[in-house]
């Protein structure tokens, strides 16, 4: 157990530079990825709100919920 931890520790502290998406960030292209995800997230949220609206309408027709918050 101790050996595993020690070896892992030395592994983490190795001098070789760890590859990260630095170039992606330098080019600023990561923002395109985040923007794309934000578009998808916004689309999904609009869709779920659309479903909420439909459901609330049905519930009102059937007089299920006295509370107007959904």
């Amino acid at each position, binding site marked *: *157990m101790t050996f*595993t*931890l020690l070896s*892992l520790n030395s*592994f*983490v502290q*190795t001098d*070789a530079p*760890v*590859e*990260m*998406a630095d170039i992606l960030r330098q080019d600023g292209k*990561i*923002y395109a*990825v*985040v923007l794309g*995800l*934000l578009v998808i*997230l916004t689309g999904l*949220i609009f869709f*779920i*709100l659309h*479903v*909420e*609206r439909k*459901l*609330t*309408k*049905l*519930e*009102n027709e*059937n007089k*299920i919920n006295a509370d*107007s*918050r*959904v």
Partner: protein
Amino acid sequence: MPGNRIRLKWWKIITIVLLYYTVIGGFLLPVPRIPILNESIRLFYFHFPMWIGMTLLFTLSIISSIKYLRSQNIKDDDLASESAKVGFVFGILGLLTGMLWARSTWGAFWTSDTKLNNTAIALLLYAAYFVLRGSLQDEIQKARLSAVYNTFAFLALIPLVFILPRMNDSLHPGNGNNPTFRLFDTSHSMKLVIYTAILAFCGVGMWLRDILIRIKTLRRLDDETN
């Protein structure tokens, strides 16, 4: 309710805000530089909350099942079945994200890791819950049998996913002789995003559960009037 406008419940609004924070912070905030993991460490923000979400929903499901056995109120059975459905989806998503992560760090989509196999077994147990429900016609019989089965499935899930992998050798953090994800705690921004992501995805799960339950309630009403 007037017009087509809807007023969202407070926790749904918070869920939306937290989701945006997760997506932006999860990709742009700094993460520790760890060999082999590299940028894939960011999958932690999306893989781990799936399991927390699954556990939350399966827990709500078994609570409703036990409630049903005491109350015989069909509404409790609806709560149990719809919670389990969303929990199952989260479990599948957790497995899929885990497989992608495993491919890029451990070298294979599926390893003989105890946690992977046990989780697959646990999800199959829940799949059997839906098969059981689908195979029974009588509502009361379906509710009672599946409530009892759900208790069994949950009691199997806990040791399979949370206890046994910790006693065996496993590639997962905190299992076998591995350090936990406390390794990541050196990074403050990681802590911020992971807690936000957990809350956000639990919110998503609760939201989906809420929608499924309301559909079920409407359907029951429809069955009664016809």
